[in-house]
């Protein structure tokens, strides 16, 4: 039976379905444990906080696909939220439809610094973004002079944006933030799976040499990945500003680890070349739902939250690794007989994109 499932669906569809199943089981479990758990308010709270994490998880996913990592996301969010808040306080008359592109532009500017350093100078991304994590934050501290952005200084519509519904279904309010995040995920998913320019990210990550031989511009593709990650972090910064209103110099601190966590739980191989942004979205939702539910679970004290979260991330990744190895062992046999491509037969990580396309 496993064999037939294995043939019908790619490992990614399988993985995302399992994650969604876990998500549903988790909601059911917590609804038996926590009184009045399943209510529209929980939905609103989780969906708005997932929107922010999902955006940066998608950006991180694109970067990780190209065999890189972006650790500077938290600082980019902090900077964007702070500078955007400053700009809005100075020029409250900027039309609303320009603010989001402006936020993405600010974020993409930071992303470009990362992208240029990694692609042009061929520097390891983990070092570059570790450094820019500190540098961007110190730029923020230096230019702020210790002052904070307060809700009072922002235009009213901006503060209200996080609380405005796009529409309502059966008592569940769907905030604009959620609509935007879902839109970003869908657009990115279509872009990455259906367009040549999107497939390049997978190609570069799964086999850089082959990608180069195939005529893909490596530098451009890696730069684009960091630009996307930066722009989405900028958008997340806008939402952060709107949701919290009061922005201090430590805004967004540590969010990069949440993004990486969402990406690895979502089944995106940290060595590049595989995974989907849908996985990143589900990973982000899982982590955030757990985070929000454990606080309210009376059986364990709220201090257990991080301990459980960390162990579950580890458990999810381990299960994924072991399952994929099994599946791959089954998959390998017919391929070995035909020997179409030596790379396929040698490959040890179960998630090369060639197989996913089937």
């Amino acid at each position: 039976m496993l064999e037939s499932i294995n043939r019908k669906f790619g490992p990614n569809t399988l993985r995302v379905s399992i994650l969604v199943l876990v998500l549903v089981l988790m909601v059911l479990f917590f609804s038996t444990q926590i009184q009045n758990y399943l209510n529209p308010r929980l939905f609103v709270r989780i969906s708005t906080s997932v929107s922010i994490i999902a955006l940066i998880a998608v950006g991180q996913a694109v970067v990780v696909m190209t065999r890189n990592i972006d650790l500077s996301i938290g600082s980019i969010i902090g900077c964007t939220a702070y500078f955007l808040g400053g700009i809005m306080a100075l020029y409250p008359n900027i039309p609303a439809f320009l603010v989001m592109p402006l936020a993405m532009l600010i974020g993409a500017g930071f992303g470009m610094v990362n992208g240029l350093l990694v692609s042009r100078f061929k520097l390891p991304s983990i070092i570059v973004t570790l450094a820019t994590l500190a540098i961007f934050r110190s730029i923020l501290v230096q230019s702020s002079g210790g002052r904070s952005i307060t809700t009072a200084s922002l235009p009213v519509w901006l503060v209200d944006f996080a609380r405005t519904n796009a529409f309502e279904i059966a008592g569940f309010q769907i905030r604009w933030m959620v609509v935007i995040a879902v839109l970003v995920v869908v657009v990115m998913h279509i872009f990455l799976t259906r367009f040549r320019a999107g497939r390049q990210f997978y190609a570069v990550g799964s086999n850089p040499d082959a990608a180069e031989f195939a005529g893909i511009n490596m530098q451009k593709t890696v730069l684009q990945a960091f630009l996307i990650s930066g722009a989405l972090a900028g958008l997340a910064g806008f939402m952060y500003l709107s949701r919290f209103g009061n922005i201090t110099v430590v805004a967004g601190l540590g969010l990069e680890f949440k993004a990486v966590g969402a990406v690895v739980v979502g089944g995106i191989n940290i060595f590049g070349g595989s995974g989907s942004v849908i996985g990143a979205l589900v990973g982000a939702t899982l982590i955030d739902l757990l985070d929000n539910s454990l606080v309210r679970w009376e059986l364990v004290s709220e201090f257990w939250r991080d301990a459980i979260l960390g162990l579950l991330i580890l458990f999810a990744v381990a299960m994924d690794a072991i399952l994929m190895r099994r599946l791959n062992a089954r998959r390998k046999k017919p391929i070995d007989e035909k020997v179409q491509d030596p790379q396929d037969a040698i490959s040890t990580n179960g998630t090369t994109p060639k197989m996913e396309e089937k």
Partner: protein
Amino acid sequence: MEAQSNIQRLFKPLISWEGFLLFALILLFIGNSISSPFFLTVNNQINLFQLSIEKVIVAVIMTLVIINAEIDLSVASIMGLSACAFGWLFQMGVPAAAAVPMVLVLGAILGGFNAFWIAWVGIPSLVVTLATMIAFRGMARVLVEDRGITDFPDWFDGLGQNPFVGPFPLAMIVFFLLVAIFYVILQKSTFGRQVYFVGSNREVAEFSGVNVRRVKATIFIASGLISSLAGLLFAARVGAVRGDVALGFELDIITIVLLGGVSIFGGTGTMIGTLLSILIVLNLRNGMALSNITGHIQTGVLGVLLILSVMVPTIKQFLTKLFGAKISGEQKELKNE
């Protein structure tokens, strides 16, 4: 030609990364001594060490971890959890003298936990230690919740705060001992060669009969043990523990090691490089603090340095292209500045 190669031979040790670090350190010493007369005193030097001694102790073992082409993001959380475990045990009535070895064993177990997932299950260390970084920090919070634990016995606080031998506090002696021990292990022992070998090419090492799992497990267990020792020293120096002990230290520690010339891809780097990098970072921070530059900006400056340090090969390549192939030793020396 003959003369040129002689010049090159003369400058070769200086052109190496360690030579450059030494040069930078000397510049830093001169600059700092000019700006403040108190800089080059034994007390100031001990003091600047003492302020971040726990980080630099962990940087010693992190050197081995990164040479082995792995990374350990959980060190700061192990430091925090160890300090909190000590505080918790002490509060439960366990005498401090008994709690210390128990905490050290705990540190080794935490390192072993990392090692299990990395070496046996085969999950990338970046992912494993990211998860345990969150988990161990969470456990520290479980143990002390939002309290602070203080009032440790005087001898324990004294170990962290008072001079131990001559003017040197215990932590500093531990640090220099560890540097000496790991220098010998890394540069002179079979195990050290294996660490480099596995780091530069894991598969070849495996085929040559190196027990890769054992090498990785040993390193991660040692990393856990030393991190927990550093956590205890932190508790002794501050005289109190809280859930956020050593929060965010991992980035500083990794920065120090990478600045010391250890490649993030593994296989290269030396203990001397790390030691020089530690001295540079500490003196730079001290110098900046003397000129009233705040902590966040100091970290930013270190970030710029980190990027510049990995850019050196690229700059070298660029200049070689610019000046053609005939670059003499002096020119290379100039570039390093």
